[in-house]
């Protein structure tokens, strides 16, 4: 499956109170166009998506926070997944869409294939942690377990490269913040 196809599936698993933090590049654009608005669409700050999600999760304990990020972003901010596993907020869910590429900037390779994600995630303090190929047959089952898990959870999906032709995010970041603050109240 491609990243946006996984994002399309997520539709059925989140409600209007939940907060999604999406990462730099195509992923934010896809989340903006495909899922309910508003969410925390990050445009820059590569590597900081998990930390932003953690900051929201520790303050808004009754709200599910779903971070959707790419392998490039994960690798740049590798410490954040460790910090999250240390605090393991039960409302924080991390979805890694791994195409082994910096797809947004032209498909250059990342070093993500050097990680055995089953072993790596296995070593972290999380109540649900699975690494898989994203496939039509199992995606619904995987997302159900991942998003409905009672504790801190991590899902790493190997995806195929590919994007939908989508226009830019039309809201200025300041407007994103305004809408998020309104959603929180």
């Amino acid at each position: 499956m491609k990243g946006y196809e996984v994002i399309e599936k997520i539709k059925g698993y989140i409600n209007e109170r939940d907060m999604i933090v999406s990462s730099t590049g195509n992923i934010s654009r896809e989340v903006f166009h495909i899922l309910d608005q508003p969410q925390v669409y990050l445009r820059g700050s590569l590597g900081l998506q998990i930390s932003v999600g953690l900051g929201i999760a520790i303050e808004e304990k009754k709200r599910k926070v779903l971070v959707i990020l790419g392998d490039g972003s994960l690798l740049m901010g590798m410490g954040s997944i460790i910090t999250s596993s240390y605090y393991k907020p039960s409302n924080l869910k991390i979805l890694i869409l791994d195409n082994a590429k910096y797809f947004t900037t032209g498909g250059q390779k990342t070093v993500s294939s050097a990680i055995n994600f089953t072993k790596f995630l296995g070593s972290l303090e999380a109540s649900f942690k699975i690494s898989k190929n994203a496939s039509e047959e199992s995606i619904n089952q995987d997302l159900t377990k991942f998003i409905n898990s009672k504790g801190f959870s991590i899902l790493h999906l190997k995806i195929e490269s590919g994007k939908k032709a989508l226009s830019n995010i039309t809201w200025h970041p300041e407007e994103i913040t305004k809408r998020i603050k309104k959603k929180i109240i």
Partner: protein
Amino acid sequence: MSEIITSNLFLKFLEENNFSTITGVPCSYFKDLLMYLDKEYDQKKIKHILATREDEAVGIASGVAFTNRKAIVYLQNSGLGNIGDALTSLAQLYKLPMLLLISYRGLLPDKDFPEHSIMGEVTEDFLRALKTPYWILEYETWQETMKEAIYTMEKLQSPVALLVKKGVLSL
């Protein structure tokens, strides 16, 4: 030698100004504060979240700010070199206020620590280049300075910085 700002009063001041979270990466200039925070302080009032990098701490504080709450980030000025993108493409761009508490290393008391000397020289230029208003925290005037910094932070809805020299927050 002037006195040091007691950790107790410093944290109380943050409580009174509705800070919910403190996060960052340590510097020995904050030793007393961080010790007090973890050993004696009731973290139901202000939570302490450890970070692995300074930009991660700014990310956490940004998440806190998205929820309409406020965080303070502590870092050594060496870590200023790690937060350029976190400020410009996240906290400043999205209008997320936070207080940066930055140790001012590389001045005279650090003359035997060459690792701090170059950043010590450029710290204020660096903050100016990053369009981040800053104040130097001093014992005699710390409360007024912090009030002004917090007022500016709220007005701009953006990060502001306090520079902390040796002996101001810890012996």
